[in-house]
């Protein structure tokens, strides 16, 4: 179980909170309080700018509140839906403004990738892995960030990107293979 995991009881409680917010937007306050920090941190990791993060976070919650009536539970928890909005908003911002998106590399994440790739975890190998990461395209980087730097489950990665859990798993293992090949080059 990871830090983002929700039990069935949590999901049911959250559904009640979502339904209350659908009835009266003021009740969205509970969900806003609950997810503000995690959405802010999610965006900050990709912008490294507090004011810009505040702006995008505000857009995310506004979009969520405007569209909350469209949210129906189909296996994707509300948090997954919210993170998907945040993910799309961040991508839209960088595409529109043609500025560099930040990728916050976590050493623990690099170590985990090295373990998954069945590599030795000496400093040289880890540096080589970091260099190989920089050669990946942005779609691959998204998956690496969500899975290894933010420690999300395959199901959550799928929810955020908009693909199935299995598809997320397959894509991530293909990226690890790609990283291995890039390291040998």
């Amino acid at each position: 179980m990871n830090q983002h995991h929700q039990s069935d009881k949590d999901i049911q409680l959250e559904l009640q909170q979502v339904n209350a917010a659908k009835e009266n937007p003021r009740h969205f306050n509970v969900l806003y309080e609950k997810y503000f920090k995690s959405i802010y941190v999610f965006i900050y990791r990709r912008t490294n700018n507090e004011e810009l993060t505040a702006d995008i976070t505000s857009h995310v919650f506004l979009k969520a509140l405007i569209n909350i009536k469209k949210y129906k539970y189909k296996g994707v928890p509300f948090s997954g839906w919210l993170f998907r909005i945040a993910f799309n908003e961040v991508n839209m911002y960088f595409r529109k403004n043609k500025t560099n998106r930040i990728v916050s590399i976590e050493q623990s994440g690099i170590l985990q990738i090295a373990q998954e790739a069945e590599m030795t975890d000496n400093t040289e190998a880890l540096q080589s892995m970091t260099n190989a990461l920089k050669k990946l395209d942005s779609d691959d980087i998204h998956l690496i960030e969500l899975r290894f730097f933010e420690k999300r489950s395959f199901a959550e990665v799928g929810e955020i990107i908009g693909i199935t859990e299995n598809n997320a798993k397959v894509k991530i293992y293909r990226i690890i293979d790609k990283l291995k090949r890039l390291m040998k080059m």
Partner: protein
Amino acid sequence: MIAMKNKQKDALKFKTDNKQLSDEQIDKHKNFNKLMHEYQAATKPLYKTPLYKNKKVFLVVLLILLIIFVIIETIQTEENNTAIQNTEQKK
């Protein structure tokens, strides 16, 4: 999903010295009342918004009025011309 479908070439900048934000730094940007205000502004029905506050509607109305003015002016000029021609013919 949009991001995954479009094989984009986003410019990326890799950072390893990640600064952790404190709860105070994050909470200072939290403002539910502002969100509610933005929500009300975004969902307010068009007929409840004063015309001068909605630039798009204001411009459309202005354009329609301008077109009507031009049409009326054209018709009046044509009528005047016909009247002048009729008077000249009678003379």
